């Protein structure tokens, strides 16, 4: 029964990673850049929903919606101001800019909200008791898993069926060719950042409900782990990000429970390294042959 409890907490933590990883994998797939600022967008989402709920007294759902709107806007602005001018620049220049944006967001939050952690009120409270109270699952875990599955299905349908989704896939395949086919590449990339950032806002609210402390650095470690999850499942692949996120969460929870609390991150990273050595393109990634 204890194992089941660990498994449930792992799956719900993994669902949060998966939501972040879905955004990460889409942005990476299309812009081919490690967006280090993604984790900080999560933090911004957390703060906005926190302010909306505690200062304005709005219901949780509305506060999350406001956070999504703000983060979407933020994502589009960051892309337009910092990343678009560097579209043809070397990869490392874009990486350093992303790090700069990450520092900027963290320090702006630090100046506005201070370094003290804020106590975040969970979006939903209460727990579900199963097997005569032997297994208790919080409603927030259930909500997280449900959100994650809905988002995953919606994104899969969006990229597979809609015109914009098709444009996205075309851009991630070959930007030049996509442009020649009449696709507005800049607008498509903006849209991808918008979706990724909106997902980050959702993840921010869920993450803060899960562990209710909110600090300017809240987003950085989940951001890195979500990228790990995306790589784990095969970067650019939507089901891969989902699978990678869930697996990562479960491994982390079980490692914490049975092996060592101190080394839980190390164990997660060690599994990532092994996976990448056995399957260099990730679990569900496409392996591309190198052409001479």
């Amino acid at each position, binding site marked *: 029964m204890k194992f089941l409890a660990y498994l449930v907490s792992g799956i719900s933590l993994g669902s949060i990673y998966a939501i972040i990883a879905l955004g990460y994998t889409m942005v990476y797939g299309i812009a081919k850049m490690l967006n280090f600022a993604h984790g900080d967008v999560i933090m911004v989402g957390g703060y906005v929903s926190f302010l909306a709920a505690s200062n304005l007294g709005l219901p949780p759902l509305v506060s999350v919606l406001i956070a999504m709107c703000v983060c979407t806007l933020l994502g589009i602005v960051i892309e337009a101001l910092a990343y678009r001018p*560097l579209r043809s620049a070397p990869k*490392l*220049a874009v990486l*350093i800019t992303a790090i*700069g944006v990450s520092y900027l967001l963290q320090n702006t939050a630090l100046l506005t909200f201070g370094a003290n952690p804020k106590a975040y009120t969970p979006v939903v409270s209460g727990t579900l008791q199963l097997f005569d109270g032997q297994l208790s699952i919080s409603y927030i875990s259930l909500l997280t898993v449900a959100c994650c599955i809905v988002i995953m299905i919606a994104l899969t349908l969006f990229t597979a069926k809609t015109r914009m989704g098709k444009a996205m896939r075309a851009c991630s395949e070959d930007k030049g060719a996509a442009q020649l086919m009449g696709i507005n590449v800049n607008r498509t990339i903006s849209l991808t950042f918008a979706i990724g950032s909106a997902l980050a806002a959702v993840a921010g609210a869920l993450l803060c409900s899960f562990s209710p402390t909110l600090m300017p650095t809240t987003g950085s470690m989940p951001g890195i782990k979500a990228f790990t999850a995306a790589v784990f499942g095969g970067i650019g692949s939507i089901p891969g990000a989902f699978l990678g996120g869930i697996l990562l969460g479960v491994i982390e929870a079980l490692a914490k429970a049975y092996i060592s609390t101190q080394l839980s*991150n*190390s164990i997660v990273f060690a599994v990532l390294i092994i996976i*990448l050595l056995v399957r260099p393109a990730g679990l569900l990634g496409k392996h591309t042959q190198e052409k001479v």
Partner: protein
Amino acid sequence: MKKLSISKGTRSDLLTCAGVILAFVVVSALKANGGLNRSQAGMLVPVCCYIVMAVSLNLTVGILGDLSLGHAGFMSVGAFTGIITAMSLAEKIPSAPLRLALAMVVGAVFAAVIGFLIGIPVLRLSGDYLAIVTLAFGEIIKELITCLLVGVDERGLHVIFNFNGSRNANDLNLGAAGRVIVKGAQGATGTQTIATFTAGFILIMITLVVVQNLIRSRQGRAIMAVRDNRIAAEAVGISVTRYKMMAFVTSAALAGAAGALFGLNYSNLAATKFDFNTSILVLVFVVLGGLGNIRGSIIATVVLYILPEALRGFANYRMLIYAVVLIVVMLTTNNPVIKSYRDQWQQKLRREKGREANAA
């Protein structure tokens, strides 16, 4: 008498070394005459360490062309092995400079060994995958050192790992004269601070000699060939793995030596100091200084390390300004308009030089 001819590359290398020596002489003179305040004098050793870190990371990122996000991990290995060496030999070797030198050598050797072990899996990957795996290794090293408990007594070194948080310094079973060197999450405590600015200067000079000679050597050209086109390099018979490993291990060893110096500059040092952010900090020095440009790395390190300190007056805003500087520098140096102006200017300069040479 035959005219001594020095190639352009060598001249540039010598110029870099001369600049470092000049800077050392000026700063030492200032220090001796009390021209530096406490906080400025305290920055001297860390600046030297970060210069060595940046130059060694430039070897991996700029010359070898592989993005490493775990360079601080090697620094950490060097720092803690160096501290353990220096502290456990405190009675046997009374001379502090000798102990410091030995600590740096041990730090470099351990970091090189770890670099070799990590290099075996890491160098099989490429691009962002390689970056994320180096990041992962950096975090793993950090967490392992956080679990480390080390003490020394008359019977020798005692090392245990505190994997599940249940053990503490008492479990080391130290003798009466024993002392704890590394205390798990608290890190190294009560370290004798034997690091000196002169040692930092010597380390920078050694690093420059090693890296610059490596770059100009046959091996260095092979490493750069691998960077520019791996398949072509392989086709002309360059052993890719061997040269990648050579650059990676050299870089790790230098980072280890820098770490040992860094570790022996503080009486208390926790493993969390060498986290992902430190790796990023050094990477920023390298990229802003120019990839593959050793002199650029040194200048960027000095400027960017001093910048946040110089902005102390702005207190809370300094990291914000730092972030903005980072973004603006990247946007302007990669701006196509500015780039084309710079190229035109360089071409003009070259043409004029050519004309002068023809006239002579």
